[in-house]
């Protein structure tokens, strides 16, 4: 096994990250110009029993943009993402992905989407070698081109040494890396990423952000679901704020700050203001101070 890793290492070029991504660009120099709206969602409703997970959600995602779905836990982000992928069926509303209906054109849509889930779904019973061979076979990818891409991704995410290890034995972060690579390998037009930075170290997180930027530069789009405000602020071009299944606001950071009447404020303040949680937070802080403030250590 170690011999295989060594031989793998030898094949990988030692290059800087910038060069790496420019090489990736060259690999796909015939950029398709995507003028179509990537995703269009109108009045989306999804319920689970009595719980309304998504309630009248409307948004669209343009080519070349990173669209953030931002909201607290239970806001309906993951449900929305799953409906877009056809993993869940909507109760009502209209959805189009690449102008296609996800319930009717599943395969065509999935062929053009790369998905990173919150909890890694990739098979733990495989090694990355087996996993990527499997993906390549299922997606009918070109062997030579895919191998080259795979080497770049493994090198840039510093994951070469795990190539022949059982995925079940990898750490959360390394599993996440495998999932990210699996979502990128077929060069999708749309990346749907649900909390993709979870478990990643700072360097890998930075590399992933660069990958996303390059992806949009090439005309691709990203739906980036997160509850971490700093990440959304740094990565996303436009942000949809969700709360309790409803769309609270949508726009760029500047547009959101205008909506919240908080010019120049950071996303945290805007978010709390738009979701009407700013007063509630102030109240909680006051109570906490009252309870803990008298107990000096």
């Amino acid at each position, binding site marked *: 096994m170690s011999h295989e890793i060594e031989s793998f290492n030898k094949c990988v070029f030692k290059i800087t990250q910038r060069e790496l991504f420019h090489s990736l660009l060259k690999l796909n120099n015939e950029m398709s110009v995507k003028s179509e709206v990537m995703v269009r969602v109108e009045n989306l409703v999804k319920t689970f029993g009595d719980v309304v997970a998504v309630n009248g959600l409307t948004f669209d995602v343009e080519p070349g943009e990173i669209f953030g779905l931002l909201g607290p836990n239970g806001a309906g982000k993951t449900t929305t993402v799953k409906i877009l992928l056809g993993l869940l069926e909507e109760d009502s509303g209209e959805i189009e992905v690449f102008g296609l209906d996800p319930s009717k054109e599943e*395969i065509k849509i999935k062929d053009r989407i790369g998905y990173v889930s919150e909890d890694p779904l990739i*098979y733990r019973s*495989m090694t990355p070698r087996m996993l990527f061979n499997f993906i390549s076979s299922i997606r009918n990818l070109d062997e030579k081109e895919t191998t080259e891409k795979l080497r770049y991704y493994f090198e840039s995410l510093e994951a070469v040494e795990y190539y022949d290890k059982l995925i079940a034995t990898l750490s959360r972060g390394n599993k996440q890396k495998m999932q990210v690579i699996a979502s990128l390998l077929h060069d999708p037009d749309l990346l749907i990423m649900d909390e993709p930075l979870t478990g990643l170290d700072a360097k890998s997180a930075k590399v992933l952000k660069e990958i996303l930027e390059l992806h949009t530069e090439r005309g691709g789009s990203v739906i980036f679901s997160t509850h971490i405000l700093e990440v959304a602020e740094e990565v996303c071009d436009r942000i949809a704020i969700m709360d309790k299944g409803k769309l609270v606001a949508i726009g760029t950071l500047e547009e959101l700050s205008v909506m919240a009447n908080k010019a120049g404020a950071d996303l945290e303040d805007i978010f709390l203001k738009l979701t009407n949680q700013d007063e509630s937070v102030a109240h909680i802080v006051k109570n906490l101070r009252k309870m803990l403030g008298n107990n000096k250590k």
Partner: protein
Amino acid sequence: MKNTELYKVSKSVYKEAILHAQLQSAGSNQQRFLERIQKDRVARSQNIIFKFMAAVYIATLVFIPIISIFQIYLNFGSNPEWITFAGSLSFSLFFMLQLVILIVFALMLSWGIMSGGPYEWVHTLPFNRNHIQKIGLFTFARSINIQLIVMSLVLPIGVTTAVSLAAGLYLGIGKIFLISIVSILISVLNTIFNLAILVILGRKLAIVMEEYDFNSKRANFVRISTMAIYLITSMLVVMAIQIGVEKLPILFQISPLNAGSTSIMNIVLSFIPVPFSLGYLMTIFLVDFSMIPSLVIVGSVTGFLLYILLVYLVTKKALKTLRNISSPDIKRFDPKRKKTAIDDIQIKSTTPTRAYMKRDISIITRETQQIMMLIMPLMLPIYTAILGSTGAFTEVIGNTGLTELFIVLMVFVVMNSYILSVSLTIIETGEKQLQLRFQLILENK
């Protein structure tokens, strides 16, 4: 996408399902289990060993119909009513044991498939729902492929061979051919029925093992009961095979009931689809129709028709279950939870030892290995008592009552202390945790 390609894909899904079930069974020892399967090929092939063991057991069961057929032809003239009863009972025992063995060996692995987890990633790949449903069916087929083949073939082969040897000259080729056809039909139906039951039970076990609240008393009780029933059944099956094969000839030679009672019993039982109708149908084809009361024939045919209806219904339910588990909209079992109010949040402190024990119970009840370890000491006396009642000890060590008792006691003392100590120490893997636990126990004392 072609079915052959989907079948290939199902191999990966199957492997993932196996790992899923194994990890769930390993519970808190998951890390240790993963290290073991990295190094040890045998540990990785545990499912294949299980498959072969089940196939061997199912194949071994064929001795029951073979012995029955020989006994039917040897004794039929003496008491047709009783021989029909004994023959049907033996065949029914065979069918029941087949089902139980299939469940005992396949259930622990099949609930990995039934949990639905292994299909989640497949849904993100370029397959449509129809493809994924097929992958679901193929994955299940892979999990029982060897048992399926053995289960379908063993009865027709066994019956045809036994009938040819026992009464080949007397019956003629035409009758033997007819018996073979009937045995194939019965075997196929029985196999479908058994697989459908396996699917339904597998899903139920998946719900119990995965989706109940982790710490609730009810969940712990359900998990322990399920595992206890499972273990008791598996032990009883082995005993039933031993006793069945050994005592079967005697069943054909005695006639404890009078002819009238036997006749009524035959008529009543032949109407019951599971497990008797197949046994009666097989028996009436083995013997001369003219010697069987017409009501028993009517009963067997009616029972068989009811059995077909039952097979249809359970198969329909099983297929629905298989479709559901591979569906992205899989309905997770949702236990009725009381909504927690702020007043429900409160601390109830206890001694550290009790706190450890409470935590251990919730861990243990999710781990097959440890549940087995805890139940085994309880099972050993029962098992030994049953073996004792069959005269197994007397045969081996003679009639010395004291020696017998001493050996049984020694078995309990040695085995129970070993099993209990292993089961209690296996919970904690860290040396420091273990030291802390014993220190706490001593302090409490």
